[in-house]
């Protein structure tokens, strides 16, 4: 019988053996086997050597930039993404639907295209970069450029997480609070923010997770100076190009481990949100 011991309950439907078999085979061949190749390659490096590669000064500088810029970008998105989601949910204005559709542009636009476009807009001779240069700020080819690129990439994660949560906010509570004399800020802090906070935290974590691995949109605007504007994914590419396979394997293994940590964090945040909202419903 297809399925065997691990089928939990019988089903009148056919095709379990075929679809389950194909799914696990395809998953194993194109995803798990390659990932295993990286893990085993990294495991083959002597522990002291691995540690030295991971704590190399240039690598540490790249973590600082990748994680710092991703965190800052996710925080910026938490603020502005919230305002955008609020505008889309609470207000009616001409072009609202178009704006709502545009939010997904960073998902649809190839990262290389956003990369060269941002680099052009923010370069010292670019449309926006010129104006910023007058104020003494340079974005392109500095760490600020990395942040800008990651804000673009992370925006939809925050807006799309917060939108449904904002729709759920109970307007009666706001009205009641207002009728009892609560000011706008008070209503926001005591009623709106607590309801939306789990969604905001989810959006922040998703944007952060995407940010630490992002490559295409960053490399054109960041300048790629070792120790200064070099993100970890780029350092992996550089090590690979220099045939430093151990170095690439060590950093790749670290980034893969961070992906698992982020998956775990996202599950944790979502679980926290569900418990919190479940509690709030009583």
């Amino acid at each position, binding site marked *: 019988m297809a399925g065997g011991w691990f089928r939990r309950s019988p089903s009148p439907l056919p095709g379990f053996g075929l679809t389950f078999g194909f799914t696990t085979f395809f998953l194993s061949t194109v995803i798990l086997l390659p990932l295993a190749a990286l893990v085993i390659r990294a495991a083959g490096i002597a522990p002291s050597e691995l540690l030295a590669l991971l704590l190399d000064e240039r690598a540490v500088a790249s973590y600082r930039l990748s994680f710092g810029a991703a965190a800052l970008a996710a925080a910026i998105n938490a603020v502005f993404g919230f305002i955008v989601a609020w505008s889309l949910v609470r207000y009616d204005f001409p072009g609202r639907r178009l704006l709502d559709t545009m939010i997904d542009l960073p998902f649809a636009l190839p990262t290389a295209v956003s990369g060269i476009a941002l680099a052009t807009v923010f370069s010292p001779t670019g449309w926006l970069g010129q104006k910023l240069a007058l104020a003494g700020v340079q974005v392109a080819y500095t760490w600020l450029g990395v942040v800008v690129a990651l804000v673009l990439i992370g*925006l939809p994660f925050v807006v799309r997480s917060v939108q449904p949560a904002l729709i759920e906010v109970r307007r009666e509570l706001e009205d009641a609070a207002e009728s009892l004399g609560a000011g706008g800020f008070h209503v926001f802090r005591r009623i709106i923010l607590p309801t939306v906070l789990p969604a905001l935290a989810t959006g922040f974590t998703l944007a952060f997770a995407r940010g630490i691995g992002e490559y295409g949109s960053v490399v054109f605007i960041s300048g790629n100076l070792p120790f200064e504007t070099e993100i970890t994914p780029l350092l992996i590419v550089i090590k690979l190009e220099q045939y430093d396979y151990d170095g690439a394997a060590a950093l790749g293994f670290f980034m893969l481990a961070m992906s698992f940590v982020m998956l775990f964090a996202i599950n944790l945040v979502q679980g926290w949100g569900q418990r919190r909202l479940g509690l709030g419903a009583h």
Partner: protein
Amino acid sequence: MARGVSWTAEGRRMTRGAKLARLVLLAISFGFLGLLLLAPLGAVLAQALAKGVGAWLESFSDPDTIASIKLTLLTAAIVVPANTLFGIAAAWAIARFEFRGKSLLVTLIDLPFAVSPVIAGLVLVFLFGVQGWFGEWLQERNLPIIFAVPGIVLATIFISFPYVARELIPLMQQQGSDEEVAALSLGAGPWLTFLRITLPKIRWGLLYGVILCNARVMGEFGAVSVVSGHIRGVTNTMPLQVEILYNEYNFVAAFAVASLLALLAILTLVAKTLVEWRSGIGGH
């Protein structure tokens, strides 16, 4: 999604403070999105047409650019059907049956979304590269994968793996299988049941997943960049061709190819929105 259920301030009495807040928040939203989304999109168009429509068109007569467009189309023609087939199979197994380790399977399917595109390329190097597990074996038989088209296809499969499955699993779970069971009990065969009952039921969700998958496949840069080797006219996809032209300061040509990719992104958004309206599927 906000559609249809959003609260409009217009029906409610607004205090002066609320009106001011509305004005300020809308201004911030428009400013932020204008700066972040419209300015780059405008820059792509402006740069692509900087020397006129003639120069823009001229860019597409470069044989290397034509080859990159062909390679991108070829990659999509292989990867999108492969991941669609996988998505349907995975959704059928996961949404229709109970088995041990199901949630682990779902997590593993989502894994490529959590992994950096650079890692997606890197793992293939350790598997098929000269130093990799199968490197020697492949080299002896003169079957290159890394720095060749098969590597590009595999890297692209990796990063676009979850799109269709992830759209179909919740949809099929929610739809249930009563109609399929009825058809089977009336004597329809499994394939007929799938084609006549299941496929029509899931068609919008399937189309939605395919649209998103295709956009990612055609636009992928990081993963493909690691395994491609950047051989002109041979292993450059459109995003890689954009990079090469840009790094050569050939801005009109770089942005011309980029404008084509931007057009693809806009078409993707339009198609996605149409499917959402037609079917009531929400975005994420």
